[in-house]
């Protein structure tokens, strides 16, 4: 199974980020993790990466509830950024919200490929790994 180069986590919950990294490490998920604690940081960070001629991460794990700029705002901003090649980018929502409206809203975005309800488990990463693999093959 091919290891994914670079993924991105946008979440203000440092505990979650720590846990996710542990689990990804376990399943040998990716080479590099980009971390942003809110939407605005992520928009700015990703822009600078693209600016440096580097590719966007294949996977973005996105929290919905964040200060400054929440997940929805990030999504809206991200997908309308010109010159972004989003064909290979998959966004997974990571949320503790069981509100069905959030899930429905998430489904409206083509780029959103999954909605992961906290707590995140190692299994979640294995499944994503498989899905990405299939897509690539």
């Amino acid at each position, binding site marked *: 199974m091919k290891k994914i180069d670079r993924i991105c986590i946008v979440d203000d919950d440092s*505990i979650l980020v720590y*846990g996710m990294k542990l*689990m990804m490490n*376990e399943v040998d998920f990716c080479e590099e993790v980009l971390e942003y604690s809110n939407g605005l940081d992520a928009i700015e960070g990703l822009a600078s990466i693209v600016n440096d001629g580097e590719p966007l991460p294949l996977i973005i794990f996105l929290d919905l*509830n964040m200060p400054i700029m929440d997940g929805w705002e990030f999504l809206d901003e991200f997908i309308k950024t010109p010159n972004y090649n989003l064909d290979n980018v998959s966004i997974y929502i990571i949320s503790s919200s069981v509100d069905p409206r959030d899930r429905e809203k998430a489904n409206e975005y083509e780029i959103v490929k999954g909605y992961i309800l*906290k707590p995140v488990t190692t299994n979640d990463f294995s499944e994503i790994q498989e899905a990405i693999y299939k897509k690539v093959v």
Partner: protein
Amino acid sequence: MRTLAAKSLIEDIPISIAFFDSSFCFTASSTKWLSIFNIIDDDICGKALDTVMPEMVNVLKPLLIEGISGQIPEPNDYKITFSDGRTEWINLKVYKAENTAFEFGKIGVVAEVVTESKGRQELLIKAKKVARIGGWELDLLTNKIYWTDTTKQIHEVPADYVPDLEKGINFYKAGEDRDKITQLVSEAMCNGTPWDTELKIITAKGNEIWVRAKGEAQMVNGKCVRLYGTFQDIDSYRRIEAQYNSVNERLRIATGAAGIGIWEFDIQKNTLIWDDNMYELYGIQKEDFSGVLDAWEGSVHPEDKERCNREVEMAVNGVKEFNTEFRVVWPNNQVRFIKAESIVQRNPEGKPLRMVGVNWDITELINTKRQLIESDQSLEGAFENSSIGMALVSLEGKFVKVNQSVCNSLGYTEKELLNLTFQDITYPDDLEIDLNLLNQVIAGKRKSYQIEKRYFHKEGNLVTVILTVTAVKKINGELSHFISQIVDISASIDAKEKAKKLLDVTNKQNESLLNFAHIVSHNLRSHSANLSMLTDLILNNKVKRQEQQGAMLMLREAANSLGETIFHLNEVVQVKTDINEKLQELNLYTSIGNVEKNITELFREKNVDYTNLVPSNQKVIAVPAYLESILLNLFTNSIKYSDPSRRPSITISSNETDEFLEVLFQDNGLGINLEKYGQKLFGMYKTFHKHQDAKGIGLFITKNQIEAMGGRISVESEVGVGTCFSLFFKKP
């Protein structure tokens, strides 16, 4: 000398006498003659009649001429008008003087004043003429009949008509009348019995008239020698009498049919006369009482008797006529109401002679009136006190009568409404349908109608009512007016709208509750998810030894966060919406001061430039704990999000609006991008600053608290300049 002696003898005779010679000169006169004729000259001998008594010439000279020529005239009465205007009747007798013992002259005249007796005679004749009484006389010896002029006039025969007994009898109407007079005349002739009767005659001109014939017989030695009497035209009297009788009969029939009793009270004799109707009115039999006064006394209701007697007395004394009402008790104890009207008749001196009056039964009238009053009163009561608005409206739409409910609903006084038409105060959009229906009622197509319509209240706002209009007809079937019943449903419409608003609020609250539930579950889940994730990692030995210490710290942090979240939620839940009883009047200036004291240290540390411009007596309606919590949150926010590049400045001021007291809380901090975050500013767990202390709970609670106190909060802000919160509180 003889002559002289004789002359003086004449002078002293106590009768008025004068003598004349053949050339109409006085030869002698008595002193009385001079005084009767008012002759001043005391020696008239040898003087001419023309000179001494010019006013007598016309009368006396022909008599003297007759006397001198040897024809002594019959003594007669003459009406003489003297030069002083006095008129006297004087009887003049002429004598031949030649045969007397003394020769005083050719002719003597005796004068006697007969004015008084003549006057009486004249009056009698006049009276007879006025009364149309004629005389007649039948001399049975000569069988001649004599009629006076009036008798002839009554018979309508010419003045030269010569009657006889048979002709006279035949004037009487054939049959009953003629037989009667024939019998009476025969009886008088045989027995000398006088007659006085009223009979009909047919005059010569064929008119039938009533006459009163009176006759007496003069008997000589048991034999009738003469009949004489009077004959009076009583036709008009009989006709009046007949008319009176027929009127009287008609009155009797009328009063009998109408149940009107007639009575007459002789005040002098203290006697009372009733007609038959009276007994019927009093429900008694004539025979059961000794007299009418007894009947009256026995019948009048005991409670009314004294008053009636007093009223009779007042009528007699001329204070007030006896026009009254009283009750009578019938023998079967039935009580009847009697109406009495009467007048008192008096003699020319004003002395009361008698009272004449009528009674009639007004029991039915009284009962009907009473029922009418009762039903009127109950109707009036229903009309006045109805909670439904009621109005009588003329055919033109004018308010004729309105009750209090209408006034209350429309805001006008009764007087104001009575000067208006319903058209004046109907909302224009509703007028056409109302008028259409009303015209259908006027056209007789329907009796009533009901619509929901709107009126203008006096204040200008609309009043919605359910109007029911019913037509009222006069006895002749024409429309008289309308009765409008007006049920004010504005209140229920208002209530409906209030209920709708309440429903909206409830829906919003439900929605926010749902959001709140999701937020709660989200936040609690976040922490519990972290806890379970960490414990899972640790238990499954996924955490490297050297990282275990850090993982434990994270575990504690997650647990703390969970606790903190629960604390915040508790705080939010405690902001209750129904806190009216805790609201009180507070001094805003003092409240600000109290909060500021708690953070004096913080102010000093940050070197805050703080200004409180609120008037020291400014009052506000608030819950003390909420007010302090709000102020503290705003103070700490301002300090927390102050711009590190400049000295923090906070200014509080107030401003009264119509409804609220506006408190402006202004700082020169970082500012918020309202275009971006405006909608979320007061949301739960929303933060907009990259600040470690930002929890996103403070403004959410502030907003909830201020709204719970009936106020609101708004914000103006510019990034890099500062933020100004406007707090609206209820005014005392």
